[in-house]
């Protein structure tokens, strides 16, 4: 049997931490590095497509600026900066992290408030460990991206992005469920509710 986590000794289970640490070590997932000198208090793991977004060569312009704000925001999460979060779908106004509908999917988006923005869709592997699965433009298309803007909160694009997040999770963590907490502190330290 060659399933991830199984050896000749037939270990039948890997903790989710062992799983993501192995995926990072194998180069299948990417761990976002903070700017040198910043603390390292949370973990943001990126799928290949999110990693590509943050590292690809890009001409100067509005899209590159959107990408820069997103990178700084994600690195701020790694650095343990305080986060304002909203745990009620459709009610986030200023929050940087919001739980999406349906809440049973345990999918969150990470937001940059400057418009036009990019939204990153993620799930929590553990408290303070996010898996950034995919991203979409919030309201304005980007030249180098095929995806349509998310648009209205009940749009098909929102549903597709959430489905893509769950699909990506299934690819990397088929044996594990995301964190489904009862309150914000089950997901994040140093965070307050909007």
């Amino acid at each position: 049997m060659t399933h991830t986590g199984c050896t000749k000794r037939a270990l039948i289970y890997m903790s989710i931490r062992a799983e993501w640490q192995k995926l990072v070590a194998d180069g299948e997932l990417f761990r976002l590095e903070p700017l040198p000198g910043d603390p390292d208090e949370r973990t943001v793991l990126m799928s290949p497509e999110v990693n590509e977004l943050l590292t690809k060569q890009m001409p100067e312009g509005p899209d590159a600026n959107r990408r820069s704000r997103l990178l700084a925001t994600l690195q701020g999460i790694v650095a343990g900066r305080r986060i304002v979060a909203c745990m009620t779908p459709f009610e986030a106004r200023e929050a940087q992290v919001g739980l999406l509908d349906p809440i049973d999917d345990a999918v969150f988006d990470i937001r940059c408030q400057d418009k036009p923005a990019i939204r990153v869709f993620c799930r929590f592997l553990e408290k303070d460990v996010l898996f950034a699965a995919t991203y979409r433009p919030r309201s304005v298309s980007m030249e180098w991206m095929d995806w349509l803007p998310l648009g209205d909160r009940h749009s098909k694009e929102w549903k597709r992005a959430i489905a893509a997040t769950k699909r990506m999770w299934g690819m990397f963590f088929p044996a594990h469920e995301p964190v489904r907490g009862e309150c914000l502190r089950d997901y994040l330290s140093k965070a307050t509710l909007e």
Partner: protein
Amino acid sequence: MTTFQKQLLNEIAAGHDGPQIPESKRVYFQQRYRDRLFDFIVSRFETARERGLTKAKLARRIGKSPEVINRWLAAPHNLEADSVSDLLLGIDAEEPEIDAHSVLDRKPVNYRHLDDQREIKVDSSTTNTAHLKHIETGWRI
């Protein structure tokens, strides 16, 4: 420092006669600055809240509506120089100390989140969770 981080700092490290610092890199540091300022203000407020400060009291002290205080303490992009001054004054009778540090040659922090907390594995010879083994001695939960 990763290749990407080196690229990020390329033009910034080029000195006074170097090329223009691209807008996207300036935007990156603008966002960092906002986030750090927000983190600082909120941490100050949280500390003062433990000593009885509320948003309503703070609003009254600095002559703003509770809605304005809510907005300022809700997101990094809502803060400006004047609002930072008002908030620090109202939160704990403080004003900011101005200082700056180079973004170049910063040493990475040695500790990485969860690096000292390793995997747990279960031996297939048992399904009893009592047999969970901590593989590393640094386990800490």
